[in-house]
């Protein structure tokens, strides 16, 4: 049995989700190959080849893979998949876009959001916004899994030197054209992998008032997150949404400010180690999952917290 991990990267750097996915592959206890698809991305392959978990890196470099479009990369995955028992990708927008497409081409039902590996064919995954944990099993000879990154601590041990094998198959795709991409530049840590997250909800009232959270986040070296209500109201960018349909986070410390704690929000953060809630409504559902609560006006409490830290 050999496992294929599809690397997520931006042609320059390996994304942190790839290291969580590698950790899931390690949990399957097997030989691990990593597939890097992109353009001018040798640095990514070289970096991955130094990780002890990695036995071999497959590198497909061509301008047609520059944006890792699902239409052709899914076929490239299919072209190599025959040798593997499992194909893994992170359960990020990248992995969720690509992996089901590859699986369907091979007539396999993939398993999404794996949060625990019980044995090589049996997995736990959340359903109903995390209100239910399902244990599922599959007999498929080749299994496709997306990995819930927060459930697996990233691999970090380097010092190895795995071989890099070039893949020369070039699969064109003429039915889709990449137009543009705007990635929010952010000096703060990345939301999905941050140790501390400060999240705001509708209670922040406006984009200007949301800024009360930034000094707190900066003091804690925290990433900033938000509820859907805050995102929809335009307080912050869409990609900061935490929840069932946004990002899944599980930091050491999650501070929820002025958000009520709807089940869809809890789905994205209830595995955090310590949860702090600040809300003026002492009956807000967020207090049911919070380890520590502060009841009161956030516009008084947050500046006080920031200055006393």
């Amino acid at each position, binding site marked *: 049995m050999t496992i294929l991990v599809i690397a997520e990267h931006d042609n320059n750097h390996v994304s942190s989700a790839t290291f969580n996915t590698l950790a899931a592959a390690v949990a399957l206890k097997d030989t691990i190959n990593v597939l890097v698809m992109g353009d001018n991305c040798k640095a990514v392959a070289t970096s991955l080849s130094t990780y002890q978990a990695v036995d071999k890196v497959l590198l497909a470099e061509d301008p047609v893979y520059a944006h890792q479009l699902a239409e052709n990369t899914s076929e490239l995955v299919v072209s190599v998949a025959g040798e593997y028992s499992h194909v893994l990708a992170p359960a990020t927008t990248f992995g969720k876009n690509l992996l089901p497409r*590859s*699986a*369907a081409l091979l007539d396999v*039902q993939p398993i999404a959001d794996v949060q625990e590996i019980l044995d090589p064919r049996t997995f736990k995954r959340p359903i109903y916004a995390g*209100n239910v944990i399902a244990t599922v099993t599959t007999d498929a000879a080749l299994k496709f899994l997306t990995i819930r990154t927060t459930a697996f601590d990233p691999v970090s041990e380097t010092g190895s030197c795995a071989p890099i094998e070039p893949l020369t198959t070039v699969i064109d*795709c003429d039915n889709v054209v990449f137009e543009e*991409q705007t990635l929010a530049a952010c000096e703060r840590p990345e939301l999905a992998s941050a140790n501390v997250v400060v999240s705001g909800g509708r209670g922040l009232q406006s984009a200007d008032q949301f800024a009360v959270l930034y000094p707190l986040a900066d003091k804690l070296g925290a990433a900033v997150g938000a509820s859907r209500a805050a995102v929809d109201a335009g307080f912050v960018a869409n990609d900061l949404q935490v929840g069932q349909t946004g990002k899944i986070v599980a930091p050491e410390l999650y501070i929820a400010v002025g958000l009520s704690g709807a089940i869809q929000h809890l789905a994205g953060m209830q595995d955090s180690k310590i949860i702090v809630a600040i809300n003026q409504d*002492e009956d807000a559902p967020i207090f049911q999952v919070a380890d*520590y609560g502060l009841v009161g006006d956030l516009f008084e409490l947050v500046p006080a917290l920031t200055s006393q830290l």
Partner: protein
Amino acid sequence: MKILVAVKRVVDHNVKVRVNENDQAVDTTNTKKAINPFCEIAVEEAVRLKENNIANEVVVVSVGSAAVQEQLRTALALGADRGIRVETEQVLEPLAVAKCLKAVVDKEAPDLIFLGKQSIDGDNNQTGQMLAALCNMPQGTFASKVEVAEGTVAVTREIDGGLQTLKLRMPAVITTDLRLNEPRYASLPNIMKAKRKPLQTYSLDALGVQALSQVKLVSVAPPTQRKPGVKAHSVAELIDKLKHEAGVL
């Protein structure tokens, strides 16, 4: 231009489901059902394209038991023209649903196919991508903006870290994210009118689809409950607890 929209019947998003005593299933009896919120957004987008004279027909399709007719009627009341039900009593997994939808696509030959990005019961986020693969069509997943041009459609996608725009050649598959639009409510006259709109049913046999399931549900369980927390009475007390009790500062 013809648009096909796939809608799923799910437990309403306000309901907190429970796990059955015997741990074998999620108890959904007597819970309120609704169109999956993402599918509602998909219907809305298609109807708007029709209202703007970009599309001329919107067909909605659902795979499931007789009960899904309720959601098809709702979609018709929201402005779709006709409905198709693919009949099955089993709960199909996304690959099997995608095969059913592929068979309908082959019959209907739509120019655009809208699905929700994710169903809020199974949380799979797979069916659209799998349908696109089976139909060999391009895919615009997690769409927050859709602009139709001559023979192509520009889809802005919500990806981790920002937004990406792709131009897809039609026919194409699009899955909807929450911010694509704000769905309307069905008016009473439209609900009445929807009762007379055509709704046809296909059996799996008639579509030539084999819907075997590959993934077996072994058991379900509630998530591990968090320990009840405490309220701090002051900012100073909170900081003290975070430092000395939780050790996270």
